[in-house]
């Protein structure tokens, strides 16, 4: 090689070879891999994947989330802009001015009237007649007094019926306000769910689309590994990867579930908070352990 005084580099060739039986087996393996690759390279298992249709499921066919009232709009309608005075007046009238209330009062006084006309007045007349006092002013006044007493009875019945309904005012008022807040809360939860589902759906859809497009490379990866199988570092990719949660994140996650459990439990007086916290803690630990 080389001649005297030449500036051309000298080439040395170093071929890496292996024992004939190894090379023979390698040739056979490569042929098998190539044949298998040809069979499966165009048959991606991901072609049949159908994208998540979150919008249709949550919003209806052809609708987008912009077609529905915004969250701030709902908050304004059901909470910050809600007219409490109108609600109170409506509640007051619904409870105390209901037709059924007056019907009940009239029914009660009708019973009293029956007693009056069938018993009290005939007895009164009888006594007046026996005393020969029917034509006297006392008869007239006393008869008027009977009617006055009837009017007072009517008033007592009416007041009793209506005053018994007063505690319902705040019950209905509070229920209506809780409902208004419940509507806003539910709308918020639904929107939260929509975005979580959309993001998870989009991530899954793009992941499967990605896997479908790179399917040929996934298959060729194995051939590549077989080609370099004589090298120590060769190895095919693991197509399942998972991040590991940090210790701090584990502690915070468990704390999150514990506090949530306690807050839910606090709705039940007594030991509810403690029991809720314990349950939340157990759930948090279970989730961390199962990850």
């Amino acid at each position, binding site marked *: 090689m*080389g001649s005297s005084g*030449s*500036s051309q*580099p000298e*080439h040395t*060739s170093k*071929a890496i*070879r292996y024992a004939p039986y190894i090379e023979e087996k390698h040739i056979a393996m*490569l042929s098998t891999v190539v044949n298998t690759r040809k069979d499966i390279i165009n048959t991606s298992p991901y072609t049949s994947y159908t994208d998540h249709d979150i919008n249709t499921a949550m919003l209806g066919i052809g609708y*987008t*989330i*912009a077609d529905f009232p915004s*969250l*701030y709009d709902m908050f304004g309608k059901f909470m*910050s802009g809600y007219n409490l005075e109108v609600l*109170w*007046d409506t509640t*007051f009238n619904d409870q105390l*001015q209901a037709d059924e209330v*007056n019907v009940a009062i*009239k029914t009660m006084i009708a019973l009293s009237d029956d007693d009056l006309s069938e018993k009290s007045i005939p007895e009164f007349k009888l006594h007046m007649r026996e005393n020969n006092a029917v034509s006297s*002013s006392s*008869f007239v*006044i006393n*008869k008027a007094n009977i*009617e006055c007493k009837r009017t*007072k009875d009517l*008033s007592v019945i*009416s*007041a009793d019926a209506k*005053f*018994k309904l007063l*505690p*319902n005012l*705040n019950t209905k008022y509070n229920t209506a306000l809780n409902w208004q807040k*419940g509507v806003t809360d539910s709308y*918020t939860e639904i*929107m*939260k769910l929509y975005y979580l589902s959309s993001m*998870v759906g*989009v*991530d899954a859809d*793009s992941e499967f689309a990605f896997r*479908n497009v*790179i399917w*040929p490379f996934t298959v060729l990866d194995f051939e*590549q590994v077989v*080609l*370099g199988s004589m090298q120590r570092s060769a190895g095919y990719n693991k197509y399942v990867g998972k*991040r590991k949660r*940090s210790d701090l*994140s584990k502690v915070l996650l468990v*704390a*999150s*579930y514990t*506090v*949530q459990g*306690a807050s*839910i439990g*606090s709705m039940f007086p007594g030991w509810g908070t403690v029991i809720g916290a314990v349950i939340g803690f157990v759930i948090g630990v279970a989730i961390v352990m199962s990850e």
Partner: protein
Amino acid sequence: MGGGGGGTPANTQTMIRYAPYIEEKHKNFLATIQAQRIIAVANSPFEDYTDIEVDDAFFGVGYTIASFPSLYDMFGKFMAGLDIEALWEQLYTSTLESSAVGDLIAAEGDLIDDEIEESSLPRLQTGMRDMNAVMSSSFVVGKSLIESTRTKVINKFSADLKYRLIPIAQERWTTHLNWNKLVVGTYAEIMKLYFSAKTDVDEINYAMAAKNTLWPFTVLDFERAALGALQGATNQKTDAAGASTMSRVLSGALSGVAMGAMVGGQVAPATIASTSATGVVTPASSGGAGYGAIAGAAFGAAAAYYY
């Protein structure tokens, strides 16, 4: 090797070769990879991705967060700047002197009037007519007795009603204050949700855009690994370049908020705790679960952050 008498070292190159069958297979393999690369580079799975929209859902089309009152503004209006004495006077007056109360008292008068005119007076008049006493002074006195009773019972009803409405006005005031606090709390929660959702959605939108832009390199990475296959090279990633992982989405701030804020407050329990003999309503205390929800949300968001 080397010329005679030269002092300079020989310039040599070493070529690593493999068995001819391996080189041939490798050459074919590279050709296949190249063909697949040409197809795949032009077929980005992220090209058709449509950004997830947040602002329209939260604020309405054409609006931004700046179009709405600030959180501090709402806090000032519903809490810090609220004159609770003026509110008490307003609610006291509207509870005891509202048109609804006036209407109820008037209706009570109408009810009694109806009964007097339909039952009491006819009964009195019929009896008096039978005894030819309609023109007597006794009849007039009797009639005025009934009218006097009517006035008295209506006044009693009015006074009694207003007395019983005083504790109700008190509870209404308490409810109103709780409501104002809930309005501010809910506004804060909604704002928190907005920023959480915006952060997570931005992350996924931009990740998809980055994946699409970097797609050619994602594909070329396979070809790079194929070129070095005989040196044991592999492509290091099983995900597209510029990607965020699914776990990032699932453990994002939005899901942290969702986990934590699942328990909301209430104005007051819907059932009345107790009613005294005079009809005085004892308000039940409202739950404090909202604080736990906020703490849970904070822990959840922190857990996601430190994932």
